[in-house]
C-alpha cells in the first residue's frame, strides 16, 4: 500500500509538472513560431524561450526521485 502511494505520488509529481510545462510551452511555442516566421534570425532565441519551462518538469522529476529514494527505502 505504502509503496503504491509512493509510486502514485512520484507519478503525479512528474505528470502534473509535465502538464504545466506543456501548457506553458504551447503558448510560448505558438508565439515563437510567429516570431520565427517574421524574423528567422530569432530562431535560436525562440528555442531558448520555448525550452525555459522545461525546468518545471525537471523539478518534478527531482521531487519524484526524492520520493523514491528517500521514502521508497524506508
Amino acid at each position: 500500500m505504502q509503496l503504491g502511494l509512493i509510486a502514485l505520488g512520484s507519478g503525479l509529481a512528474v505528470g502534473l509538472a509535465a502538464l504545466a510545462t506543456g501548457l506553458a510551452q504551447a503558448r510560448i511555442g505558438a508565439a515563437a513560431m510567429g516570431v520565427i516566421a517574421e524574423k528567422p534570425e530569432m530562431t535560436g532565441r525562440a528555442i531558448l524561450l520555448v525550452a525555459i519551462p522545461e525546468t518545471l518538469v525537471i523539478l518534478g522529476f527531482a521531487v519524484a526521485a526524492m520520493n523514491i529514494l528517500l521514502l521508497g527505502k524506508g
Partner: protein
Amino acid sequence: MAKVQVLGRRRHLDAVLERLYGTQRVELVDARADPELGLAPADGAAGHVERQAELEALAARLDAALELSGTPAEAHPQLVPDPVPGSVDVAALVATLDAAAPRLAELATRLDALADERALLPRYADPLEQLAPLIPELAGLDDDELRQIGLDTLALVLDTTGETLLTTLREELQALLGSRFELVWTRVGQDAIGCLLIFPHREIEHVHRLLGHEYVRHLPLPSAYEGLSLHGAIAAMRRRIEALPGEIEATHRELASAVGPHERDWRTALGGVRAEVEQLAAACGAGVTEHTFALVAWVPRPQLGRLRVELADPALGPVVVEELEFERRDARVPVLMHNARPARPFAFLTRFLDTPRASSVDPTGLMAIFLPLMFGVMVGDIVYGAVLLGASLYLRRRFSGRSPVVADLASVLVIGSVWAIAFGFVFGEALGNLGKDVFGDFSLWVYRGGADALEPLLLFALAIGAAHVLLGVLLGLWQARCDRDRHGLMDRGGTLLFLCGMFAIAAYAGGMLPDGSMTPAVAAMVVGLAVAMAAHGTLGIMMGPLELLGAVGNVLSYLRLAAVGLASVYLAIVANELATVGPLWLGIIVAAFFHTLNLALAAFSPLIQSLRLHYVEFFSKFFVGGGRDFRPFGARPHDAPQTP
C-alpha cells in the same frame, strides 16, 4: 580585433583601396564619422557619388536582366570580377543592355500577362460553372440568341457570406422590373455568393445603374469570351487554363535564350560594377588633407603584420598603418570568431543564439567540450552511438561543401556519438539491456537500467551541472573584471560564494567533509547572499535571493541529463521486452521499430537538451550577445566571414 588608421599619399588612395579590396583583410569604416579624427571628406567625393549612382543603376539593370534568365547566380561557375576601378566599359555595357531591352521587356510583359491570366481565369470559370446548371435552358444560348428573344444576362459576385444583401437586391430588382427577371445564385468559395441575373435587354441601363447604387461587383467577362453562350464561355476558359502552363514555360525558354548569349559577360560585368561601387563608396568614406588620405579600418589582430607587409609596396607610395585606441564594449566593434579546428563546427551553434560581442568571451571552445559530453551522457549506448556515428559521418561527407550548416551539425554529432559509445561502456549498455543479457554486466561504473542506478546517476548529473554552472560564473566574474563592471563583479562573486557554500554543505551532509567545515560553508552562503543583494542596489533585498535561487535552479536543471538518459534506456528495455512476446519474426519487427524510434529520439532530444543547458544555464552567466560579424572589404555579402 584591431582598429587601424591607414595613412598615405592622396594620389595613391585608389591604388591602396584596390589592394585592400583584393586582400579582403580589413573592414573599412567611414573615417569622417569619427569626430576624434577630425578628417575632411575627399574633394572628389561629389564626382565619386555621381559615378557610384550611375554604376548602381547599371547594376540594378543587369540584375533585373539576369533575373529574367531564370537561373540563379550560384548555378554559374565563379566569375572573378576585375577589381580595378574603371575596368568595366560602361558605355558598351549600356549599349548591349539597350539593344536587348525591347525584346526582354516584351517577353517580360507577356510573361506577366500570362501569369495574371492564370491567376484570374479560374475566378471567372469557377462561379460560372456553378451557376450554369441553375439555368439549363439559357446556358446554351449565346448573346445574339439571347437578344433575339429580348433577354440579357449579368454575372455578379457578392462579397458576403449572409443572404441579406441578396434579399435586398432581389427586392430592388422587383421594384424596378416587377416579375420580369430571374436571379439565380450559388455560394462561391467561403466568403462570396455568385449570381446570374437574366432580364429584358431593354432594361440594361436601369439595371446597371441599380447595381452601381448597391455596390455590387459586376463580373465582366474578358473580351475573348464575350458573346459566347455560358457553356461555350466556360469550355473556352477551361481550354485556356489548360494551355497556359505550356505558354508560360515557352515564354521562360524564350527569355532564357534571349539572355543566354549575354549572360556570362553580364555576370562578369556585374561583379566588376559592384567592385567599383564598393571601392567608390570606400573612397567617399576616406578623410583627406591637401596631400594625404586617411582610411580607418578594422583588422583581425593576427593579420595586422601581414597587412603592413602587403601595404609596404613601392607602387602604393609610403603607407603608414597606425593602431588606434577603441572601447572594447562598443557594439560597433566587429567580431571574427576564431576557434581551433575541432571547435569550428560548434561556432554555428553559438551564432544560433547570437553573435558574441567583441568584449564577450567566445564560448564556442567550451561548447565543443561540454555539449558532446552531455549528449554522450544522455544517449550512453554503444549500438546507438555506433549507428549515430555512421550516420553522422555519412552526412558530413555528403554535405561537406554543399551545406555548411548540415556538415557542421554532422560534425557535432560525430563527436557526440563517440562520447555516446564511451558512456555506453561506462553504463554497460548496448541496445538497452540486450548487451547485458548477452555478454553479462560489462559496465565500467553502473548499469543504468538497474534499480540502484538512480541515485548515482542523479549525483553524476548534478556534479556535471555544478561544474558547468560554476565555470560559467567564473567566466562571468572574469568578464566583469575585464569590463570593469563593479555591479557584475559583485553579482557573480556573490553567486560564486553562495554556490560554493551550498555545495560544501551538501558535501558535509554526504560525509565527504570534516566536522569543522559546516561553519565556513554557512558563512560563505550568507556572505554570498549579502554581496549579491548589495549588487542590485535598493532592489537587492528581492532581486539578490531571486538571482541565487535561479542559480540553484540552473544546477538542478542538469538533472535532465539523468532523466533523458533513463527515459532512453527504459524505452530500449521495453523494446527488448516486447520482442519476446509472440513469434520471433514479429518480435524482431517490433524491436526494430521501437529501437528506431528510440534512436531517432536519441539523435534529436539530447542535442536540444544539451543546447538548452548551454544557452540558458551556462551562457546566461557571462555571454554578451548583439555582436556584429566582421565583413572584409572586397568579400561578397553572402560570403561567410573568413577565418584566418
